[in-house]
């Protein structure tokens, strides 16, 4: 079993829809959770970062962590064609350095105008 799992998609939604992207994980020690956005043929860029459980909102994006279920989500409201990308979740047990971060395989999202 992989430590971090994501539905690879592709997920296709109409413009303006609410998008829900999810990851499950097996290591209960994970406390730091991240979402990255990766456009085609580009490197990933950090989108959201949360610590432990709860929600965090940034504009149209909301990150949610449920440690009891080992489940994290990224919601995108009023989705735009510019949101079309692959979304990677990532997580780590300690805060010290990126060398301990585990990435999920990514979900491909396409927002249709």
């Amino acid at each position, binding site marked *: 079993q992989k430590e971090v799992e994501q539905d690879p998609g592709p997920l296709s939604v109409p413009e303006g829809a609410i998008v829900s992207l999810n990851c499950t994980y097996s290591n209960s020690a994970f406390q730091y959770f991240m979402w990255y956005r990766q456009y085609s043929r580009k*490197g*990933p860029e*950090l989108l959201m970062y949360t610590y432990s459980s709860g929600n965090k909102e940034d504009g149209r994006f909301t990150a949610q962590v449920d440690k009891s279920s080992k489940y994290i989500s990224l919601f995108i409201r009023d989705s735009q064609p510019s949101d079309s990308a692959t979304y990677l979740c990532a997580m780590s047990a300690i*805060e010290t*350095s990126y060398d301990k971060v585990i990435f999920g*395989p990514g979900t491909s999202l396409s927002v249709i105008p």
Partner: protein
Amino acid sequence: NAGVTQTPKFRVLKTGQSMTLLCAQDMNHEYMYWYRQDPGMGLRLIHYSVGEGTTAKGEVPDGYNVSRLKKQNFLLGLESAAPSQTSVYFCASSYSTGRGPATVTQYFGPGTRLTVL
């Protein structure tokens, strides 16, 4: 300010050939990283460096070597390429102090697409 750049962008090798991928950053970052990205596998850390002259192994270091002779450059070498090393390689960099995502942003390069026949 170019950020993180990678050379070359594409490369095709035959099994057994060698090559070096170059990563350069102009942000004066201490930490640099090499990842590979394969379908269904996510990003996996190959090697990383916490400063000039240092290197350390990541999750999948076998078959790769690295060097950090200058702070701004991080080289990834394949001595004898194998088809299993066909992948997209990403370099990244971040500030020092050893802190992770809570306070330090990691910047990625655009990637190098490598095919080994």
